[in-house]
C-alpha cells in the first residue's frame, strides 16, 4: 500500500518535470520583475499562492506598480484568464469523482497543469484524482519556489535575462507539436491558429483573446455539424 503511494508520487513527479523547468524559469522571471518594481519576497509569494496564473501575474506587476483601480484589475483578469472557462469545460469529466481533491484541482487549473492533465492519468494509475492532485501541487510548488528565487535573486544576476520570457512561447509550441502528433484530426488545431491570427489582425494585440474564443467556439460547432452529418 505504502509502495503504491510512493509509486504514484513518483509517477506524478516525473509527469510534472517538463513544467518544473518552465515554471522555475518563468516564476523566477516574475519574481525578478516584481522585485524591480519594489515589491519583495512576501508579495511575490502571496501572488503565486493566491492568484497562481502565469501570464496574469506578469501583467499584475504593471497593475500594482501603476496603482490600477480595482475595476481595471477585475476586467483585465477576466479578459486574460477567460480561457480558463474552456479548461474547466474540458476537464468536467476527468475531474468527476475526484472527491476531496476536487476543489484544489479546480483552483490550480493553470495552462500548464491543464496541458499535463487533459491527456488523462497514465495507464495503471488506480486513483486518478490523487494523481491529478499531486501533479497540480508539484506544479504550484515549482511556481512559488521560482517566484521566491526570483525575488531573492533580484538585482544580483550576473547576466542579462532579456528574452527569457520566450520560455512561455516555447512551452506552448512544444505542447502544440505534441498534440499535433497525437491526433489524426488537425482541423481543431488549425481552427485555433487561424481564429487567433484573424482576430489579432482585426482587433489588435490587446483585445483579440475574447473574440478569438468566440470564433473558435463557432467554428468548432460548425465543424461538429459537418462531422455529424457525415456519420449519419
Amino acid at each position, binding site marked *: 500500500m505504502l509502495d503504491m503511494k510512493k509509486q504514484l508520487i513518483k509517477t506524478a513527479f516525473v509527469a510534472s518535470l517538463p513544467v518544473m523547468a518552465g515554471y522555475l524559469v518563468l516564476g523566477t522571471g516574475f519574481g525578478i520583475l516584481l522585485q524591480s518594481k519594489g515589491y519583495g519576497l512576501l508579495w511575490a509569494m502571496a501572488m503565486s499562492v493566491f492568484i497562481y496564473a502565469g501570464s496574469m501575474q506578469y501583467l499584475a506587476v504593471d497593475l500594482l506598480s501603476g*496603482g490600477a483601480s480595482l475595476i481595471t484589475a477585475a476586467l483585465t483578469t477576466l479578459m486574460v484568464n477567460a480561457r480558463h472557462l474552456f479548461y474547466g469545460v474540458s476537464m468536467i469529466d476527468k475531474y468527476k469523482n475526484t472527491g476531496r481533491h476536487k476543489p484544489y484541482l479546480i483552483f490550480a487549473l493553470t495552462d500548464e497543469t491543464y496541458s499535463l492533465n487533459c491527456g488523462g492519468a497514465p495507464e495503471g494509475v488506480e486513483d486518478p484524482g490523487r494523481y491529478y492532485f499531486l501533479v497540480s501541487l508539484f506544479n504550484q510548488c515549482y511556481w512559488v519556489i521560482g517566484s521566491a528565487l526570483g525575488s531573492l535573486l533580484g538585482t544580483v544576476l550576473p547576466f542579462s535575462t532579456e*528574452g527569457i520570457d520566450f520560455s512561455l512561447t516555447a512551452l506552448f509550441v512544444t505542447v502544440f507539436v505534441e498534440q499535433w502528433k497525437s491526433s489524426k484530426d488537425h482541423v481543431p488545431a488549425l481552427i485555433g491558429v487561424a481564429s487567433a491570427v484573424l482576430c489579432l489582425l482585426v482587433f489588435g494585440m490587446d483585445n483579440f483573446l475574447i473574440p478569438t474564443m468566440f470564433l473558435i467556439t463557432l467554428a468548432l460547432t460548425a465543424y461538429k455539424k459537418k462531422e455529424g452529418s457525415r456519420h449519419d
Partner: protein
Amino acid sequence: MTDLHSAALIAVMALVTMALRFLPFLIFRNRETPKYIAYLGRVLPYAIMGMLVVYCLRGVSFAAVGSWLPALISCALVVALHLWKRNTLISIIGGTVCYMVLVQMVF
C-alpha cells in the same frame, strides 16, 4: 501605492481567476455533461493551444527584422527539437537559450 490597495488588487485578481476556474464545474455539477459540451471539451484543447501560441507571439512585429526573425528561428528550433527528441525540457530550454542569444547578441 499603499500596501492596502496593492493587497486589494491581488485579492480581486485572485477572486476573478478563481471564479473563472470554478464556474464550469458549478454549472454542470449534478447532471450528465451535455453531448455538445463533451465534444467541445474533446476538441478545444487543440484549438486553445493553437490560440496560446499565437497569443505568445502577438507582440512580434513584421516591420522589424530584429523582432520576427529571432522568434521565427527559435520557434522553428523548438519544433525541430521536439520532433527529433520529443523531450519537452530539451525543446523549451533549447528554444529559450537560442532566443536569448539572438536578441541579446545578434540582433
